[in-house]
């Protein structure tokens, strides 16, 4: 039998939802545990075994000086690093602090901001260390997460769709929410992976998987504006769950608050 993959799961600034997706694999969990040696997964187990690890799954973004050091340590003791989710891959919703108002934001939440040891920015893991694979989504799709684990168990690249939510939506045979109802939808510029969930539920995609490859954001934004969406709402759409992903940041900032 092949050697088990020694796995570590790390958490940085996040909601825990992506690592929870692993615990949500009720049917597959015990089978996965057979092929994987879970050496570190604090949310699930008290057992802790030291590195090095074959694979580290990293959830969350870098928002404190301590975490900026900890991620370097994670990289050093991991053969492969995979980021899971929008926080680790694109800063997450907490990266809205990067848009210039951090000291004021800290004062809104804390009476004594001087007690808080945090950075003025929330940044993706790839800004700090080399990342071997990025899994998108807020949260990640658990089937995709299982595919990533299987791929790394067998030493191959994960086979995941690289097109857009719009293509997934067409494959599903949905009626286009934008054409039929004028609902602003980020499907054409958003990375596939969810199976076009939001349009299937008759709402516009809100971009939680981040930008697709080479997204044409500007024509889409012009279309929103032409449909009467206020500039402020266009900005809000792009600057939300993946606000520091390049294409979304640039497009969002092109529209006034």
């Amino acid at each position: 039998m092949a050697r088990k993959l020694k796995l570590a799961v790390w958490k940085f600034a996040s909601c825990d939802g992506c690592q929870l997706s692993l615990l949500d694999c009720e049917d597959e969990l015990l089978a996965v545990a057979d092929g994987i040696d879970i050496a570190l997964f604090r949310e699930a187990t008290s057992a802790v075994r030291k590195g090095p690890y074959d694979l580290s799954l990293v959830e969350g973004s870098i928002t404190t000086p301590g975490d900026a050091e900890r991620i370097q340590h994670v990289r050093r003791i991991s053969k492969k690093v995979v980021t899971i989710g929008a926080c680790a891959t694109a800063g997450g919703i907490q990266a809205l602090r990067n848009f210039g108002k951090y000291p004021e934001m800290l004062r809104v939440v804390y009476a004594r901001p001087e007690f808080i040891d945090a950075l003025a920015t929330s940044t993706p893991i790839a800004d700090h260390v080399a990342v071997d694979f990025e899994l998108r989504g807020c949260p990640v799709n658990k089937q995709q997460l299982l595919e990533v684990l299987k791929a790394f168990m067998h030493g191959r690249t994960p086979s995941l769709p690289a097109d857009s939510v719009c293509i997934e939506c067409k494959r599903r045979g949905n009626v286009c929410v934008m054409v039929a109802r004028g609902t602003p939808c980020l499907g054409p510029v958003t990375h596939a992976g969810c199976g076009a969930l939001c349009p299937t539920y008759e709402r516009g995609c809100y971009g939680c998987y981040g930008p697709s490859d080479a997204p044409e954001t500007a024509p889409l934004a012009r279309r929103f504006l032409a449909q009467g969406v206020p500039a402020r709402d266009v900005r809000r759409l792009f600057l939300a769950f993946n606000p520091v992903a390049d294409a979304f940041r640039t497009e969002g900032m092109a529209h006034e608050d």
Partner: protein
Amino acid sequence: MKTRTIRVDYMARVEGEAALTVRLKGDEVVGVELRIFEPPRLFEALLRGRSCFEAPDITARICGICPVAYQMTACAAVESALGVEVPADIRTLRRLLYCGEWIESHLLHMIMLHAPDFLGVDDAIAMAKLHPERVRAGLRMKKAGNAIVTALGGREVHPVNVRIGGFYKAPSRSDLEALLPELRWARDAAADTIDWMGGFEFPAVDHPYDFVALRHPEEYPLCEGRIVSTSGLDIDVRDYDSRFVESQVAYSHALQTTLDGKSIFCGPLARFHHNFERLPAVARIAAERVGLRPPCTNPYKSILVRGVEVLFALDEAIRIIENVSSPRLPFIQAPGRAGTGFGCTEAPRGILYHRYTIDDEATIADAKIVPPTSQNQRSIEDDLARIGKALAALPLAEARARAERVVRNYDPCISCATHFLDLRFEIVA
């Protein structure tokens, strides 16, 4: 003065990051600090300037374990600001969605995080070798809860179908009815699981906590009710801020809540205490079979109360689905208007409070969010202080394990509260 410092860098099987310091001088506990160093994500600040219609999706991201609780509370608060009252059929579907989250969240804690403490194993995977059928049943029940959230919300974590005024798309009757066979199996399995857990050994602990929970005139509380306490509080949700105070301590990123200057205890034990008679007969009978009735002030027995609440949530979900009719409209339009709104609902871990002030362009001017774990923080510290002496007498690894158990009784969701646990005993000799 000789000081011994015992340090645990992370606490396992809790959701989030925190540290604990117990300071002892001789036999006396001189200080307990639960230090939550989960990095602050500043939700209350980043909500300012966003549309109030974004609040359910944005606040869901505070917690991947109880996103529905955030969505339901955000809806309640924004709708109160906008002067919207959702029709009964939408209200019932929200209750169903919330039952789904209670089931999956409680089972995650009971089976995967808490039960290993009573069986002396590291995790559910080790437990699966000792009690394979129990773990399998637990995961299957959890899946039944997730299936409700997925059917109504689109996915288990951060559902996409919740909006101010209701749902984007109403579920079909057949989609919901398809859940029934598994839910009925799970209802029997939950009763059986309670009986099994009733045989666990519970440390004899008893403390007169001030239990705080919602109370509703007819129902076991989920989305609404008045806020009541053992100490006699009985207030409308909009009066929360006049009695509960959040304060910052130097050692933690999470704010701490007090009621009239004293610590409070919210969550399953508190709900059970104030709402026992509102449980369906099947849940009351299962509780009494394992000797559980109010007042239950043993926090270790919270695992049993979670079991009873799972049974309730399964029974309630079945009742709702059996009687459901698809709503005429999936949502009602909410008109934009300026105002302040208040929402308080029962998250799996206890009361969750949101307050929003909205301007006349539907933009959030001010937001306040108080998660259950920050409300319980003081109470956790009190419990640790009470066993401080005993901890000092134990070998290091045992002391750490015992302190962690005290914290796990609360099922703390630390992502919420700062929105982990480095455990440190400073023994001042």
